[in-house]
C-alpha cells in the first residue's frame, strides 16, 4: 500500500513538470527590428573531463555494490535502495546521459567512422556492464541502469505472460538492435537516444509525444514487469548473451533446492526455469534429421531476411539528412532558388554543388543496401536460432534463474525458505 502511494505521488510530481507542454503563450513573441531571433534550445553542454571520471567511478562503485548485494548479501532491500540511487544519480542528476544503452551507438560510430573519437567515459559505460554480466550476470540491469530501475519501481501488480508471447515479443530487441547499428554505422542518427521513452522524464523536458510514450511505458510497467528492458532494449540483447556465460550468477536457493515451489511464480519477468522431468532419450536418427533441417533452414532464413531488409534500403536511407535533402532537390530542382527552409539554407551556405550532394547521398544509399543485407541476415540468424532453441529440451531437476533473461533483481531470493549452509527452513513471515 505504501509503495502504491509513493508511486502515485511520484506520477503526480512528474506530471506537474510537463504542464508547460500544454501551455500557450499569452502574447505573441516579440519581433525585433535588429533581426534578433529567439535562440534555439541547445543540447546539454559537454561535461568537464574530471566529472566524466566521477561518472566512471560512480558506475564502478554502483556495479560492485549491487553485485555484492545480489550475490553475497542476497538482499532485495539493498537492490531496491540502489535502484533509487541510480534513478536519482544516473537518471535525474545526469539526465540519463551517458547511458550504457545508448553508448552502443557510439561504439558502432567509432568503428565505422574514422573521424569519430570515442570518449573514455562512453567506452567504459559500454564495456564494464558487459564484463560484469560476463562474470556475475545482469547485475547492471538489477539496479544500476536508471531505465530498468524506474520501471522496476513502478511494478505494482505483475501479470504473468504466456511463454510464446514473451518469445515473440523477445525478437523485437534484435530488430531494434539491427536498425540502431545500421543508422549509427551510416552516421545517420542515434535512434536509441532519439526514441528513449525515459530521457524526457529524467530531463523534465519531454515533448508531448515522448511524454506520452514514457508515461505509457511506466503505466504498462505497473502490470508487465520492465516492458522496455524485455521487449525493446537493444543493449539487453548483448547483456543476455554475455550473462548466459556468467561464472557466478544469482541462485534462487543458497543451498540445495527442496522443491517447495514457493519461488515458482515469484519472478514478474518470467525468468525462472522450472524443473523438466527426464524423458526417454530420442533416437539418434531423429536428432540428426532435425539438426540437418536446421542447418539448411538457417542460411535460407538469413538470405530471406537479408533480401527483405535490403529491399527497403532506400526507404530506410531517407532518415539520413543528406539523402533526404538530395531526394527533395532531385524531385524539385527549383527548390534551391525558392525555398528558405533551414536545410536548403544550410546547403546553400556550405558551398557544395548539387552533384557533390548527390554523390554523397548515393554512397550513403549504397551503404544502406549493404547494411540492409547484413542486418537482415542477422535477423534471419536470430529467427533460425530461436526456432532451433524451441526444439531443444534441457532436463532440469531444480528451479533455476534463466541466466539470459534474469535481471538479478533478487525478488525470488526472499521466497526461498532454505538457509545457507544449514539446510534449515526459515520462518516465513505471513
Amino acid at each position, binding site marked *: 500500500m505504501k509503495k502504491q502511494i509513493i508511486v502515485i505521488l511520484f506520477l503526480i510530481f512528474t506530471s506537474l513538470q510537463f504542464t508547460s507542454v500544454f501551455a500557450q503563450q499569452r502574447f505573441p513573441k516579440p519581433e525585433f527590428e535588429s533581426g534578433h531571433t529567439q535562440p534555439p534550445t541547445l543540447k546539454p553542454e559537454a561535461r568537464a573531463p574530471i566529472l566524466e571520471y566521477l561518472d566512471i567511478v560512480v558506475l564502478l562503485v554502483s556495479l560492485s555494490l549491487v553485485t555484492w548485494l545480489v550475490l553475497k548479501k542476497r538482499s532485495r532491500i539493498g537492490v531496491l535502495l540502489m535502484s533509487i540511487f541510480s534513478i536519482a544519480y544516473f537518471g535525474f542528476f545526469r539526465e540519463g546521459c551517458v547511458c550504457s544503452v545508448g553508448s552502443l551507438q557510439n561504439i558502432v560510430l567509432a568503428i565505422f567512422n574514422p573521424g*569519430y573519437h570515442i570518449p573514455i567515459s562512453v567506452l567504459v559505460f559500454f564495456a564494464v556492464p558487459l564484463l560484469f554480466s560476463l562474470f556475475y550476470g545482469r547485475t547492471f540491469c538489477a539496479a544500476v541502469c536508471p531505465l530498468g530501475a524506474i520501471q522496476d519501481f513502478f511494478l505494482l501488480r505483475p501479470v504473468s505472460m504466456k511463454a510464446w508471447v514473451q518469445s515473440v515479443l523477445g525478437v523485437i530487441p534484435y530488430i531494434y538492435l539491427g536498425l540502431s547499428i545500421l543508422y549509427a554505422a551510416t552516421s545517420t542518427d542515434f535512434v536509441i537516444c532519439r526514441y528513449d521513452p525515459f530521457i524526457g522524464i529524467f530531463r523534465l523536458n519531454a515533448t508531448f509525444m515522448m511524454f506520452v510514450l514514457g508515461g505509457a511505458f511506466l503505466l504498462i510497467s505497473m502490470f508487465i514487469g520492465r516492458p522496455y528492458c524485455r521487449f525493446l532494449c537493444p543493449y539487453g540483447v548483448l547483456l543476455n548473451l554475455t550473462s548466459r556465460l556468467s561464472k557466478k550468477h544469482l541462485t534462487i536457493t543458497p543451498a540445495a533446492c527442496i522443491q517447495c515451489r514457493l519461488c515458482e511464480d515469484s519472478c514478474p519477468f518470467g525468468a525462472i526455469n522450472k524443473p523438466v522431468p527426464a524423458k526417454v532419450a530420442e533416437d539418434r536418427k531423429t536428432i540428426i534429421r532435425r539438426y540437418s533441417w536446421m542447418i539448411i533452414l538457417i542460411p535460407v532464413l538469413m538470405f530471406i531476411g537479408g533480401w527483405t531488409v535490403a529491399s527497403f534500403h532506400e526507404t530506410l536511407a531517407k532518415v539520413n*539528412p543528406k539523402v533526404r535533402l538530395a531526394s527533395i532537390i532531385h524531385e524539385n530542382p527549383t527548390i534551391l532558388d525558392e525555398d528558405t527552409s533551414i536545410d536548403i539554407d544550410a546547403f546553400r551556405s556550405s558551398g557544395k554543388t548539387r552533384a557533390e550532394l548527390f554523390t554523397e547521398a548515393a554512397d550513403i544509399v549504397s551503404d544502406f543496401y549493404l547494411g540492409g543485407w547484413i542486418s537482415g541476415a542477422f535477423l534471419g540468424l536470430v529467427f533460425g536460432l530461436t526456432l532451433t532453441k524451441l526444439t531443444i529440451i534441457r532436463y532440469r531437476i531444480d528451479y533455476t534463474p534463466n541466466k539470459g533473461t534474469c535481471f538479478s533483481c533478487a525478488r525470488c531470493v526472499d521466497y526461498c525458505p532454505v538457509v545457507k549452509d544449514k539446510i534449515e527452513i526459515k520462518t516465513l513471515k505471513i
Partner: protein
Amino acid sequence: MDRRDFIKKAGRGLIAGGIVAGGAYLLFKPVGEERCELDFICKNCKQLKNCSLPEADDFKKKNESSTNKR
C-alpha cells in the same frame, strides 16, 4: 571440468578479451580527418563557434553577420 564448462570458459575468455582489446583499439586508434556528419547543418550545431573545420569556417565567413549575433 566437463565439455559444457569448457565451452563456457572459453567463450567468456574470448568475449572478455574481445571487449578489452576492442576498447583499447577504439580508444587509441588514430583519428582521421575531423568530420561532422551527424550534424550536417552548421546552423544547428552548438560547436559552430569553436569549430575549425573548413566547412564551419566557410559557413561562418558567409554568415558573418548572423553568427556574430549568436
